[in-house]
């Protein structure tokens, strides 16, 4: 038992990878692979619940369950893991969504084994980002997660569609999306990589607590630069890498393509967890490492967040493709997270910052639930109709009532209806950001208004109006599909009426 407790994080981190290895040796039979993959993904969830039970909530701001081992001795990078309240929330989100995504993937027919292996591998990559307390180790997981996601889009992306890249080069849309995702994110990470190396050179270690301490004391001339110049450069290197992942305007253009082309479960995880990696990066690295620069450039970040909220909403409103609509809604919702982080950076230490951060982390969790739900519902209807064009649907409310009910419920959660989850977090964000960035927050309300418009547009086009000829192909959700949605909807409702169980952890973590 002691072994289990002392290595709980390692176990959570590597059981998915172990699962991937086991799948490789199992017979290449679709049913076996699906069930084995799904059951394996329940193990990290169980371990996370156990972690939750043993976590000391009174000390949620501190890193608990720390593990440390020598990894790359000569340059002082170590295998150092730990969770605080924020990381715990994100780990829970990841281990909760992955089994649902795998359950949703039972409809995948092509190369099932490799698909499930990549998915489990992806889970390890995501968890590593949340758990790492060493900058080099963090970067390892940050980058390695790109590989399975690339292949999920590249190989299992939507079979239709072509993209004209430049004269003489036309490629399938999924190939275009996969390359764009990979190259964008790698290019974005380049500055992050360089900045991490620089931090290692300046502080002589990659251990996060030590780096934060030494780096904040660094002054004078470092590596031939003024300390303030170097810090500003490093700040932007980090900020751009994370902003690209969130993604925040103007770095968001990879997202609609990647989301639209990814297989359903891929979109669920992409929107549900991968986008959170960027926001988490701001919280874990940018704010502690660059408090002054974050404050100095907070207005720029807030502006970018506001633009993401407004343009994300308008762009979603203008879409004719159901999946693209949901994709842009992610830009819109994640904009709030960035707005909150900017407000917290500006007003660091005040009550407003505290409220904004609470809202940010809760919004990350909430958006994970609603986005995963929305993408699943879009995927479910696409599988049946083989089209995502809103104009081709209509009148389905009475035709497939279970689906319709769930779509309305999830859409309302996404819209921010009081009583459901997003309302709480968006309210907290607006409450926290209002005294700090009044104008930006006020303008963001335009975005909130348009959010209502595009969500209702989606519902109206799909569920109401006259039935189209497509209706003949459309059957209601199967039991398996209902089982994917029920846990998501349950949490949306619980967090809407009683958010305190989660907010308390977050509050202690960000307030401490």
């Amino acid at each position: 038992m002691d072994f289990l407790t002392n290595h709980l994080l390692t176990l959570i981190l590597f059981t998915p990878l172990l699962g991937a290895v086991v799948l490789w040796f199992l017979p290449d039979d679709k049913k076996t692979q699906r069930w084995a993959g799904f059951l394996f993904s329940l193990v990290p969830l169980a371990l996370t619940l156990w972690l939750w039970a043993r976590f000391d909530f009174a000390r949620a701001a501190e890193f608990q369950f720390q593990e440390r081992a020598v990894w790359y001795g000569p340059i002082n990078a170590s295998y150092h893991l730990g969770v605080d309240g924020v990381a715990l929330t994100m780990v829970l989100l990841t281990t909760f969504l992955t089994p649902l995504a795998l359950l949703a993937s039972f409809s995948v027919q092509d190369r099932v084994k490799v698909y499930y292996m990549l998915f489990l591998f992806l889970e390890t990559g995501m968890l590593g980002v949340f758990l790492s307390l060493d900058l080099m180790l963090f970067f390892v997981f940050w980058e390695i997660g790109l590989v399975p996601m690339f292949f999920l889009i590249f190989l299992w992306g939507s079979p239709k569609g072509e993209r004209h890249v430049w004269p003489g080069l036309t490629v399938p849309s999924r190939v275009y999306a996969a390359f764009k995702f990979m190259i964008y994110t790698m290019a974005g990470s380049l500055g992050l990589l360089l900045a991490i190396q620089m931090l290692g050179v300046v502080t002589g270690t990659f251990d996060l607590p030590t780096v934060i301490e030494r780096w904040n004391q660094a002054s004078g001339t470092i590596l031939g630069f003024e300390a303030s110049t170097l810090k500003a450069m490093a700040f932007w290197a980090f900020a751009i890498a994370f902003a690209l992942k969130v993604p925040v305007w103007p770095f968001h253009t990879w997202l609609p393509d990647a989301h639209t082309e990814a297989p359903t479960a891929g979109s669920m995880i992409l929107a549900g967890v991968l986008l959170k990696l960027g926001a988490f990066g701001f919280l874990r690295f940018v704010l502690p490492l660059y408090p002054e620069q974050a404050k100095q450039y907070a207005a720029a970040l807030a502006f970018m967040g506001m633009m993401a909220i407004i343009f994300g909403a308008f762009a979603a409103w203008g879409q004719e493709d159901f999946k693209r609509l949901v994709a842009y809604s992610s830009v819109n919702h994640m904009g709030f997270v960035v707005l909150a982080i900017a407000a917290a950076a500006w007003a660091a230490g005040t009550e407003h910052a505290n409220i904004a951060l609470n809202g940010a982390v809760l919004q990350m969790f909430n958006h994970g639930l609603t986005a995963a739900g929305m993408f699943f519902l879009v995927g479910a209807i696409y599988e049946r109709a083989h089209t995502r064009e809103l104009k081709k649907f209509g009148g389905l409310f009475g035709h497939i009532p279970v689906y319709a009910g769930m779509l309305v419920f999830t859409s309302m959660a996404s819209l921010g209806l009081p009583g459901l989850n997003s309302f709480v977090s968006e309210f907290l964000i607006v409450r926290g950001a209002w005294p700090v960035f009044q104008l930006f927050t006020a303008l963001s309300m335009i975005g909130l208004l348009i959010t209502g418009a595009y969500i209702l547009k989606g519902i109206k086009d799909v569920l109401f109006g006259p039935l189209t000829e497509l209706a003949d192909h459309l059957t209601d959700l199967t039991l398996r599909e209902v089982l994917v949605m029920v846990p998501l909807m349950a949490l949306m409702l619980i967090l809407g009426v009683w958010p305190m169980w989660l907010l308390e952890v977050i509050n202690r973590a960000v307030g401490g």
Partner: protein
Amino acid sequence: MNLPLLSLIIFLPIVAGTVMLLWPNASRDAIRRLALVTATITFALSAWLYVAYDFVAGGYQFVEKYPWLPELGISYHVGVDGLSAPLILLTGVVIFTGTLVSWNIDRPREFFGLLYILATGVFGVFAALDLFTLFFMYEVAVFPMYLLIVIWGWEKTREYAGMKLTLYLLVGSVLALVGGLAMVFAARDNLGYLTFDLLELEKAGLSVGFQKFWFPIVFFGFAVLGGIFPVHNWSPDGHVAAPTAVSMFHAGVLMKLGAFAALRVGVMLMPEGAKFHLPWIILLTLVNVVYGAFIASVQQDFKYVIGFSSVSHMGLVIMGIATLNHDGLLGSGVQMFSHGVMTALFFAVVGMVYDRTHTRHIPSLGGMMKKLPWAGVAFIIAGLTSMGMPGFSGFIAEFPIFMGVWRYEPWIAIVAAISIVVTASYVLRVAHKVFFGPLPEEFKDIPDINVFDRVALVTLVFFLVGIGVFPHMMVPWIESGVNYVLTILGGA
């Protein structure tokens, strides 16, 4: 332990090679079996040597010294330190896997015979602690290369490429030889006796003026083989023209020979000269890194892509050496091994595809994943390694190189980092074109790779992933070697 392990590793291949060449009426199978046995034993011995090297104690181990021409101060003096032990292992890995993938080569007698003579030369250079031994082995390594390319190479360019390669390398080695002799004679004035022993030459106290003049000559002489810009030109042509196993040897091991000798003879014997000249040499390597990556990204020939990517990656090796600091040298050491294995894997896969399709024109290929899944996965792993993806050995190597460059001059690190994205883009493009997409009609019936090929691929992948996940597999060795270099640099 009285077993002369190191000499055994050095001479086993040439003995086996000679036996093959002289064995009358040997059947094709007999030759191939002998080759496989030799390669396996050599690999096992080099792995043994690697594991047995005590990196805590550091310094030169497995040292053997016998007088050769005592009047001239020449001896057969060999030994390994933390930098050369991994390279001995690398050579063992490449000879083993190169033999496996050449199982169906034409005229195996001459092919394996020459290849193993070359292997002896390579082992000899890595182990040499005597300047004469080093030059001798260097030539043993370069000469068979010409024959191997011209006889078994690609019909269209083999004569041109073989000639080009040999001339470049000969000019380089003549320069280095002249510089080496100059050092020996200059050292005689200080020491009072003639010696070619590297350990004694290190202590000879060559004057700063001498070092400033001769360092670039010696360094460049060897760095030609390391593929430094602007004398990198022979290498992509040579890679492309050579048969698979020779490309693996060539890019995997021979280019390291150049970088290693440039470090061993150039930097370690003339540290003051190195400090004086390396600031501009590092700019050349920056060109290697960035320009090599861009050139690789516009190639239409599968093998040229890999050839130019080697130019780019070897630039990083020399760049790390040129920083002359702990991190840079550490990264270079790891990169030499990592790039050796990675590029051997690349060329092995290219060879497997070419043998079956008889084309390397990227747009004509496609869908190979369906036909050659092992090769496809291996290519993707090598590709991820080459783009510096964490979890693979390339990341473990390049990360400290960049840190070393940061310490040295931040702007160079920032510019060099561009190559990472460029590399990612061309690796993904090639993987996409060759291994995915529709399978052309004419390749519907190509056979999958055999079990020998699979063993070779798995062996190579093992090292890439192993070091990537557990850097401890290799880093302590390299670090003990780097510390020795740093004492020389500090003490000079």
